C-alpha cells in the first residue's frame, strides 16, 4: 500500500531540531480546563519535541465568542484560568476559531489536525486516549493513510521510528511496539495505570512556559462534508458528576444482591461527593444502567477513592478501576481478588457496613 503524504507534511525527521509534536487538547465542557487525559498527552508529547497544542473553541472557553477579541486571550490568560497553557508546556497554542467548527465534528477536527500537521511540520500528533481523542486520531489516520497507535503509555524516538509501549486489553497487557511512519499518530492512555513516563523525559524539552506560549487563532479551511457528522448534545443525558471524572466512586457488585440494594450506596456516594459505579455483572443482570459500569467494557475511572462494595474484583473490573488513587474494599470474602488491589479492606457484609458508615458520616455533619 502507499502511504498518503498530505500536502505540506514534512518528511520524516532525522534531527531533533526538526521534531515537533502536535497535541490535541480536549477541554472540560463545564470548567473549560484541559482534561487530565489531555495533560497526560501533552506531557508525553513534550518528550518528543517542542509542543504545539491545538484547542477547539468549544464550550465555555469561547462563550459568546468574546474571548477571541481581547488581547488577554492572546496572552493566554483568560482561556485557561488556572494557567494551564504553561502546564501544557506548549510553545504554541492553536485556538481553532469556533465559528469554523461548531460543536464536535470528528472529521472536521481531524481535518484541522491534517492542516496543522503540515503547518507546524509536526513529526508526531498526539491526543488523549479518550473516545474523542481516539476517534479524531483514527480519522486522521484514515485520511492520511498513516498508522495510528492507540493508548500509548510511553513513547520515545529511535531514529526515524518511534518505540512505544501501548495498552492492550484495556491495560491488562502492554505491547512493546515500533511505529514507523512519516508522522507518528498516537493517543495516550487516559489512565496510564501501568507505567509512568520515565524520569527525565518530561523535562527533556526546555520549558518555554516562562514566556508563555504563542497563541495562534486558527481558521481552518473546511469542506461542508467534513462537518456533516456532528455531535448534537442532549440536555437529557447530562447532569451529575461523570463517572470518568468523579473524585469518589462508590462501587457495587454482585454482593449488592439486586436492583433494590443500591440506595445505601447512592446515599454514601452523595455524602462523599461521588457517584455510584458498578461491576459488569450488575449491568448484565440489568440491575443498573450500563453507563455506570466500571471496567474493561465500561468506563475507566481515575478517582481519588474507589470504595468497592461487594465486588470480587474480576480482572475485567480491575481494568476499569486500577486508575483509582486509593481503593477500599468492603467484602465478605477475605480472599476476594479485589483485596490484592485495595489499600484497605473491611471484611463484612456491605448491607451492614454501608448503612453504618452512612450513619457515622451523617452523625458528624
Amino acid at each position: 500500500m502507499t502511504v498518503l503524504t498530505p500536502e505540506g507534511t514534512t518528511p520524516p525527521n532525522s534531527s531533533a531540531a526538526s521534531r515537533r509534536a502536535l497535541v490535541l487538547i480536549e477541554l472540560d465542557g463545564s470548567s473549560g480546563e484541559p482534561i487530565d487525559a489531555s495533560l497526560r498527552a501533552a506531557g508525553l508529547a513534550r518528550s518528543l519535541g517542542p509542543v504545539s497544542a491545538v484547542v477547539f473553541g468549544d464550550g465555555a472557553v469561547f462563550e459568546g465568542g468574546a474571548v477571541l477579541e481581547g488581547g488577554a486571550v492572546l496572552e493566554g490568560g483568560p482561556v485557561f484560568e488556572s494557567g494551564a497553557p504553561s502546564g501544557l508546556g506548549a510553545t504554541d497554542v492553536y485556538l481553532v476559531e469556533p465559528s469554523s467548527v461548531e460543536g464536535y465534528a470528528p472529521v472536521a477536527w481531524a481535518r484541522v489536525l491534517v492542516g496543522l500537521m503540515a503547518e507546524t511540520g509536526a513529526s508526531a500528533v498526539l491526543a488523549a486516549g479518550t473516545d474523542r481523542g481516539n476517534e479524531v486520531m483514527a480519522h486522521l489516520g484514515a485520511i492520511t493513510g498513516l498508522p495510528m497507535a492507540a493508548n500509548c503509555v510511553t513513547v520515545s524516538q529511535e531514529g526515524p521510528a518511534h518505540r512505544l509501549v501501548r495498552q492492550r486489553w484495556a491495560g491488562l497487557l502492554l505491547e512493546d511496539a515500533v511505529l514507523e511512519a512519516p508522522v507518528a499518530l498516537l493517543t495516550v492512555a487516559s489512565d496510564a495505570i501501568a507505567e509512568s513516563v520515565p524520569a527525565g523525559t518530561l523535562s527533556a524539552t526546555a520549558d518555554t512556559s516562562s514566556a508563555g506560549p504563542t497563541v495562534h487563532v486558527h481558521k481552518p479551511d473546511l469542506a461542508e462534508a467534513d462537518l456533516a457528522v456532528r455531535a448534537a448534545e442532549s440536555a437529557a443525558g447530562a447532569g451529575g458528576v461523570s463517572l470518568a471524572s468523579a473524585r469518589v466512586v462508590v462501587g457495587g457488585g454482585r454482593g449488592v444482591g439486586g436492583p433494590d440494594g443500591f440506595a445505601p450506596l447512592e446515599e454514601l456516594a452523595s455524602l462523599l461527593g461521588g457517584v455510584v459505579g458498578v461491576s459488569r455483572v450488575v449491568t448484565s443482570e440489568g440491575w443498573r444502567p450500563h453507563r455506570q459500569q466500571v471496567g474493561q467494557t465500561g468506563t475507566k475511572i481515575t478517582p481519588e477513592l474507589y470504595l468497592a462494595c461487594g465486588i470480587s474484583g474480576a480482572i475485567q473490573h480491575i481494568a476499569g478501576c486500577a486508575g483509582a488513587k486509593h481503593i477500599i474494599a468492603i467484602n465478605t470474602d477475605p480472599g476476594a481478588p479485589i483485596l490484592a488491589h485495595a489499600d484497605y479492606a473491611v471484611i463484612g457484609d456491605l448491607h451492614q457496613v454501608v448503612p453504618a458508615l452512612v450513619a457515622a458520616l451523617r452523625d458528624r455533619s
Partner: protein
Amino acid sequence: MSDTPSRASAVIIGAGIVGNSLVHHLALLGWRDLVLVDKGPMPNPGGSTGHASNFIFPIEYSKMMFELTRDSTEQYQELGVFTQSGGIEVARTPERMIELRRRCTMAKAWGIPASVITPAEVRKLVPYLDDSVIIGGGYFPTVGVVDSLRAGTLMRERAVSSGALTVLASTEVFDIDVADGQITGVVTSAGRIETDNVVICCGVWSPRIARMAGARMALTPCVHQMISVGPIALFADTPGEISYPIVRDVDTNMYERQHGGDMEVGSYAHRPIIVPPDDIPSIEESALSPTELPFTQDDFDPQLAEALELMPELLGDEKAGIRYAINGLISMTPDGHPILGEMPEARGLWSAAASWIKEGPGCGRAVAELMSGKVPAVDVFEANAARFWSHQTTVQHVEARADEAFNKMYGIVHPAEQWESVRPQRVSPMYARERDLGAVFYETAGWERPFWYESNSGLLEKYAGQLMERPAEWESRWWSPIINAEHLAMRETCALVDLSAFTVLDVTGPGALATMANLAVAQLDVPAGRVVYTSFLDENGGFVADLTVMRLAHDRFRVVTGGATGRSDFKWISDHLVGETAVADVTGAWTTIGLWGPNARAVLSALTSADVSHEGFTFGTCREIEVGSTVVLASRISYVGELGWELYVPIEQGGKVWDALWEAGQAHGLIPAGIGVYGTTGRLEKGYRAFGAELTQEYTLVEAGLTRPKVKSQDFIGKQAYLRQRDEQPCAVLCTLTVDSCESADGTLRYMLGKEPILSLAGERLVDAKGRPSYVTSAGSGPSVGKHLLMAYLPADVAVEGTPLLVEYMAEQFPVTVARASSAPLFDQDNSRIRS
C-alpha cells in the same frame, strides 16, 4: 481471617463436599484441632462441587456405590438440602429397555423403588417430553437434587461451632512434609502447620497435592459438558428448584434437569477430554472457576439435536437461550471408584478423593471412620486408597481408562465387560503359549489371564448336551460354552491353569509368626510345610481378606491372595507387623501353575522323583520338589475340588515347567483351562466362597458357614467379635441355590449373572433381621451337577435346604431351591476327589 494454628490433629485439604463432610464427621468422632484448608474462597472455592448438577440417582450396580449414595442422601436429607424430584431413564432402543429391566431388578435387590413405565406414563410425568422418540422408561421416584454447597457450609459450620475446626480459606498448600514415611506437616501460604495427618479431598487437584507427599493418585480430571437453557416458560411459575423429574436420556448419554427457571442439559456423549491436573488454571486465570473450563461448542453440537428431539417445544423455544455452558471438570479413576483411606506412600497421608456429589458425604463419613480406627459403616474396601498396583497409578493408565470409561457413563455395561486400553500390561511367562492356544484373555490387576481357550473347542462336541449353552445374547456375551467343556474335561482328566495373577507376599523375620497369628483366624502356629486357608477379620468380625498361607519355615510365611486385592492385603499386613518382621511383595518373582484333575498325579509324577502320592504329599501341605530341572514349590490344595497342586515356579522358569507339564500331560488328557473354570464353575459346585462376593465386611464367618470347630487360643484381630458371633444365631446364612427352571416367559433359557434379588415364593424381597437384602453374590454354571448355581445370603428362616424361592432376573422370576444351607459342596460331597 483465622490465624493459622501451628499444630493440628489433621489438616484437611479441600473444602468441597467431601472435605466439609469429613471435618464434620471427624468432629463428631471426637477429633479436635482440625484445620481445613482451601486455596479458594468460601463457600465455593472453585472445585467441582461448585458447578455440579447436584442430582442423585440412587441406582448403582456396585453395592458399595449404592451404599455410599444411600448414606449421602440420608445425610443431605438430615441437613435439609434434599429435594425429591423423581428421575426417569428413558429408552430409545430395545437394548435399553432390556437394560432398564435389568436396572429395575437391581433396584429391587437394593430396595430402591423403581419401575419400568410406558412412553405415555413418562409423558404424564414429564409433559414436555416427546414420547414418540422413546419406547419406555425406568422410573426412580426417589431421585432428588441437593444443594451441595449449602450442605458443605452447614457441615463445616457445625465443625467450627463445636470448636473442633479452624478454616483457612484462600490459603494455598505449597508442600507436605514427610519424615521416615510419616506425615509431619503441611506448608501453606498462611504458614506451616505441624500435623500427623493430612487428608487430600482436593477432587481434580488431588494428584498435584498427593505428589507433594511423594504419592501417586490414580485420578484424572475429565471434562463433562453442561449447558443451561432458559428462561423456560413452563418453569416460570413452578415453585423452588425443581418440579419435574430429571430425565436421563441414556441412549444419547445426556440428561435434562430443571434448575429453577432453566433446563440444564448435561452430556457424557462428547469425546473424552482429559485435562492433566497441572493444566488446571489457577483461580486468577479462570474466567469462571478453575473447574469450569471454556465450553467447546463443537463437542456439544451433536447433542443439541438429540436434546431438541426429546424436548422439542421446551428446548426449541427461540426465546430460551443457552445462558451458561461449561466444560466442567470431574474426577475419574481407572475403576470408577473413589479413592478412600490411607495411601500406601506415607503414614498419615489420607485420601478422600474422586467422590462425586451423590456419594460425597458418605465418603467423608467413611474416611473419618477409617481415620478414627473404626470399621466404616459402609464397606468401602473396593475404594481402598491402597488398592492400586503401580502401573494403575501411571498417568498413561489413568488417562487411558478414563478415556475408555467416559462414554460408558450411561452405557449398557456388561458385568464381565473387559477394558481394551493399556493392555497387555502384566503377562505371565506362559503368555505366548496361551495366545497360541487361542486363549481369550481377561484382565485382573493388569494381568492377562486366559478365561478360556479356543483350542478346547473340540471338547464342545464331546460334552454336547452338558454345556448349558446360553441362547440369550446378554449371557452369552463375555462367555463361552468352552468354559463348561473345560470344566468337564478337568473333572475327567486334568487341566493346567495359569494362576500368575496371584499376589504372593512373603512375611519374614522373628516376628513373622506373631504377625500372622494376630491377623489370621486359623491357627498358623503349624509345622513348616503346612498350607492353611484362612480369613483376616476386622474388629467387628467382618472379612478383611481371604487367602492361603504357607508356612515355609519357622520365621517365614508365604501369603497367597488374589490379584485384585493384593495391594490392599499388603497394606493390611504392613500396617499390622509385629516385632521384627518384614513383608515383601514377591508377586513378580513367582508364577503359579495349577494342575488339577484325576490325572494330575500321573502327570506330575512323570516329571519328578518326589513322592507325590496321597500319603507322601498330603493335602494341605507344601514343599519344594524337582520338576525336571526346576525346583518348584508345590502346594497341595484346590479351589476347584480336584486332586492337584499349585506349583510356585520362579517366574523366569515358568515357561519351562509349563512346557514340561504340557508334554507329560499329553498322555493323560491334559487340557489348558481358563479362569472361567477356576473362578466360577469349579468353586460354585464345591461351595467355595470368594472374597468380595460372598466374603465382605458386612458378613461374618458364622454367616458365611466358615466356622471351625475350635477357636485358636491366641488373640487375633476380630476374635472377640467372632466369639460373640459364634454364640449367636446367625440372622443370615450363605446358601447355594439351584435354579430349577431357566426358562423365561418367551421360552428362552436365561442364566443369572449375579446381584439378582432372591424373593419369596410370593415375590417379596427377602431381608434379614439386620436389614440386609438377599441377592445373588455369585452365579454360574455347575456343569457337573447340571444346574445353574447361585450363592446368596438368606434370612435364617428360609435358609433351609429344600426351600423353594424365586430369583428375579431381567424383571422375570425364576424358581430356585435352597440346595445347601452351609458350605457343604454340591459336587463330590465327601471331597473324595481332593483327597484321593
